[in-house]
């Protein structure tokens, strides 16, 4: 978990810093300096357009994290209220409708549909966010409903109902804080899946468009140069792996830390 937190922090920090400062401007192409090896000026070398790899990776982190984070945001903002509503209405028609709708979205191969969405509405970071975000909605709805259901049978919820609070208020004031742990863990998992999905979409040219740097796009460019400059294919991939690994480790650690029951035997 500590490793996960450190890795996540490093990439989040790189992304944050890149908003205000990168070592070299990624929009400036210096063809004369293309595919340089590591040096003091360019610690990770330069790419086939002479852009500084460190700057590209930092800006790529920003793209990946922004896309995945906003996609998780869509999932939470739309999915959690749906899940809470379904739990408050457990067994009723609203519950049935919400859960069947969930099953339906789950039945779609998400990446295929994401490819379709970005292809139809044009490749852009915004459409990638929407395409990934849509598939986060049923995930959070299901987690919220699953976490909320057992709570509704507890005495303090009964007390709140006796005190005259309606289902919406109980969900917001009593249920939500108690399922926050579950949601945080799920958010880390969806975040890491979102990074992978964004990388895949931008690799096939359907994510953020140039000149916005993205890790997937860098890999796609590197592939065309694989015989000339194979080193370009390494770093963006390592960045993706370390970010996803960090988030996964962080998610596992948070799950264990927030749920004492899991602390016992599971390694």
């Amino acid at each position, binding site marked *: 978990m500590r490793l996960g937190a450190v890795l996540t922090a490093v990439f989040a920090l790189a992304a944050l810093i890149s908003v205000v400062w990168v070592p070299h401007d990624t929009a400036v192409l210096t063809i004369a300096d293309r595919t340089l090896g590591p040096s003091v000026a360019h610690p990770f070398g330069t790419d086939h357009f002479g852009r500084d790899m460190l700057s590209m990776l930092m800006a790529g982190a920003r793209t990946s994290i922004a896309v995945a984070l906003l996609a998780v945001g869509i999932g939470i903002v739309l999915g959690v209220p749906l899940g809470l509503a379904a739990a408050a209405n457990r067994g009723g028609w609203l519950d049935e409708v919400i859960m069947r709708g969930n099953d339906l979205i789950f039945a*779609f*191969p998400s990446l295929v549909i994401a490819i*379709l969405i970005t292809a139809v509405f044009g490749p852009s970071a915004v459409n990638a966010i929407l395409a990934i975000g849509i598939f986060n909605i049923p995930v959070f709805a299901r987690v919220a409903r699953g976490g909320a259901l057992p709570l509704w049978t507890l005495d303090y919820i009964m007390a709140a109902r006796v005190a005259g609070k309606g289902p919406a208020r109980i969900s917001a004031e009593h249920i939500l804080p108690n399922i926050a742990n579950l949601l945080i863990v799920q958010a880390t998992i969806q975040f890491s899946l979102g990074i992978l999905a964004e990388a895949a979409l931008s690799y096939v040219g359907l994510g953020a468009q140039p000149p916005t740097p993205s890790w997937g796009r860098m*890999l796609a460019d590197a592939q065309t140069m694989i015989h000339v400059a194979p080193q370009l294919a390494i770093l963006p991939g390592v960045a993706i792996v370390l970010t996803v690994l960090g988030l996964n480790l962080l998610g596992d650690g948070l799950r264990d830390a927030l749920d004492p029951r899991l602390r016992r035997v599971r*390694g």
Partner: protein
Amino acid sequence: MTRAILKRLISMLLSLLAASLAIFVMLQAVPGHPADFMLGLNAQPDTIAALNAELGLEGTLRERYLDWVGGMLRGDFGTSYTYRVPVAGLIADRIWVSAPLAVYALVLTLLVAIPAGLLAASRRGRASDWGVMGVTQLGIAVPNFWFAMLLVLLFAVKLRWVSAGGFPGWSDPAQAIKALTLPAIALALPQASILARVLRGALIDTLEQDYMRTARAKGLSRRATVVRHGLRNAAIPMLTILGLQFSFLLAGAIIIEKVFFLPGLGQLIFQGITQRDLIVVQSVTMLLVFAVIAVTFAVELAYTLADPRLRRA
């Protein structure tokens, strides 16, 4: 039990209906008409009308939707705007790359995941368990297309054992399988990692059950109890995950095909997208969605049959 199966069948049909509607409606939102795109700016109105009729693009939305769905039920997937040949034919050519690739990857996944999961579960907490958990943790984090590029870098660029991509066709099966090997390995890595971890978890849960101790007390060896009772009880969570993974396998195949320049369904979709050949995109996507929904149905059916407790749902 018939009721349970019938219920699943109805929900599968509803999913298919909703999926076809969603895909159809989405593709109506694409700006521009295929006929304008194909004939250019100076086309005569009657030429455009004739082409629209030929492509099945006349009539109301509802008529076109019903035409499309009805056609697919008869095996008619429409006519490609760019190639002017039936889409069904294009699919038939490409599916002989994509389907074997998916099956190949699935076989590799099982061959790696089952022994790894068994090993980790039966040596829990020891070095081999940590090894399996560490490697699979990494395997989940690696994007398969990047892993594919690393394989190309090592085996095609450095060692020159295989070509960096392309597909020679099935006339020489040995060459065809060789061309699919690296793509299948790349596809299988994340799948096998996830499956091995699920199997380990399921096995550990099972091994703690009382009946396992009974089996040991009856004189069965440790290995026999794990294989006979453990593996069988772990089969249901494994089937579930395999079913879920199938959609990732399909989507992954689309991306992996791009890495290795394989002429599969993925390539067909991307060509369709760049050439605005929407009927191809529409029909191939529907086919993939159908495959995923059908596999989900088959998996549910399989464990309804395997687990008596689920028959009453």
